[in-house]
């Protein structure tokens, strides 16, 4: 029969129309400013800079290595290195960004800066209500506007942030252990040299005596020598 196909199609639309009164699943519209859907955890909009602690300038993780600036596909990041240094989260003195600007009118939210950053300093925000009437100044964010605390990062990307924190804690522990081991090794060589110098004329059993000296002595010189090694660095 001519028109059968059309009627079949109309039955389909009628079914959907009637269904929208019955099933909640079919009513997917949310009236935006009043009602909002929470963004998914993976959502990314524009990058921001993470800082630890309460002072954004002191706790900034970025060390101005400029890798993100080089890798950024649309080249929307501008970094100027500082002249002086400040300690980073491990305690090692590092350069910090004297200037860190992101032009979010150019940024294309690709997340490559996040992937290439070796210091976990730059992450993606999910803030999307960024409309401004200042076309140039309002969309050029400087480092103060970009800086956001680690807690904020935990709030928007909980699983990712936990993984990053674990990684950083591990790195820190490793760095501390390494510093300790270095110090201990230095102390040991110093102690050995001292012991050798002291014991050389005394006894022939210096070889057997070293284990005991290793077990008992190091802690003291280690504590003394840590500041020395750091100053040396």
């Amino acid at each position, binding site marked *: 029969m001519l028109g*059968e*196909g059309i009627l*079949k199609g109309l039955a389909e639309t009628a079914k959907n129309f009637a269904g929208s009164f019955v099933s909640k699943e079919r009513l997917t519209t949310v009236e935006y400013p009043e009602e909002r859907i929470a963004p*998914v955890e*993976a*959502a990314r909009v524009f990058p921001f800079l993470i800082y630890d602690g309460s002072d954004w300038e002191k706790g900034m993780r970025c060390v101005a290595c400029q890798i993100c600036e080089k890798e950024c*596909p649309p080249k929307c990041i501008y970094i100027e290195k500082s002249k002086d240094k400040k300690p980073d989260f491990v305690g090692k003195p590092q350069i910090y960004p004297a200037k860190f600007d992101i032009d979010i009118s150019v940024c294309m939210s690709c*997340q490559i800066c996040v992937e290439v950053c070796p210091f976990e300093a730059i992450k993606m925000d999910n803030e999307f209500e960024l409309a401004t009437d200042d076309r140039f100044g309002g969309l050029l964010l400087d480092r103060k506007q970009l800086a956001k605390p680690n807690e904020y990062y935990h709030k928007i990307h909980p699983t990712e942030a936990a993984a990053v924190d674990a990684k950083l804690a591990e790195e820190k522990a490793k760095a501390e252990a390494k510093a300790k081991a270095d110090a201990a090794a230095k102390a040991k060589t110093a102690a050995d040299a001292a012991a050798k110098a002291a014991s050389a004329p005394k006894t022939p059993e210096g070889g057997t005596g070293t284990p005991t000296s290793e077990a008992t002595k190091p802690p003291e010189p280690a504590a003394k020598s840590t500041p020395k090694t750091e100053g040396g660095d």
Partner: protein
Amino acid sequence: MKDRATTAGANALEDWNRPPVFETEGEGELLEVSMGPHHPSTHGVFRMDVVLDGERVIKLKPVFGYLHRNHEQIAQGASYLAAMPYTDRLDYFCSLTNNWAYALAVEKLVGQAVPERAEYIRVITAELTRVQNHASAIGFLIQEMGASGTPLMYAFREREKILDLFESLTGSRMMCNYMRFGGCRVDPSPAWFEATRKVVAGLPKFVDEFEALLSANEILMARTQGVGILRSELAVNAGVTGPMLRGSGVNYDIRKVDHYGIYDRFKFRVPLGEQGDVFDRYMVRILEMRESVGILEQALKEVPAGPIMDPKAKIRGFRPKPGEAYGRIEAPKGELGFYLISDGGPNPYRYRVRPPSLINLTVLEDMCLGQNVADVVLIFGSVDIVLGEVDR
């Protein structure tokens, strides 16, 4: 002034070195109409210079380049990784397949292996992309026929579910930027697989509904059958690929021909048309959606555990040895290929995209000659292009 205008017009006609197919009937004059670039049916900014004799098309000249963004030159100036987000913006309906084609080309260039799990995730995301692309392509096609809204909304309802999956996996609905050389960027969580299974389970029902709505519709048949016929010889000679080529009855699917990725492991058929008209192209897309759902079901069953990224793959300081590679995949619109030449530097010496949309568009005039103006819009819609890929 007057002289110049008339001669310019005459030259413009003569320059198209194809003789007119139809003589004017009676005393009428030829009418030159410029369709676009802001015509709502052009999927972006695209212009067709159409010469009409009454209602019939006797010449058609596609004009594009309005959306040119210098994609290839930008990619040649940037590092290999930095070109990846730009590939999202080629065919912005199918960013994941674009990612895959580019990743495949670079992996060929450096001989990079991809872990098993990543291969499965690539297949799953690519087939989801194909389903949503075909659904919306058909939606647009029907919209251009004059059924304003309903089928397109049905398609977009389904597309939305798939884009939600993409968003929860990659962080972005359309600009996914997900694949990397030697794997994928993030490992999907079990919850994501659960959600995907749920969406995939609903897809056959959607295709059934879509078909009940459209396939038997008399108006659709009257408008599409016997319209815009593309002969298989012409399709092959013009380098047409994808559903358009298969709609003309040529059995050529790169998933079957090239054996890229892990497509050998899945059972699927290649739907073929017979006449090569708009209806066949429509039907091939519907059937391909069904086959894609089959692949998705198989792939979701067998996803292995393991790393998502080759641990040896480098992200920074990526410098392939001098050489060249061409990686191609069966994108939803046809053969999408990336041709790369490396001179050992951090950026490609030559970076070339073989876009299916542009090359499928070259046969537009041959399909439109002798048809009515109203059918031009329909034939153009059945090519299924995205201007971001045509102009690059």
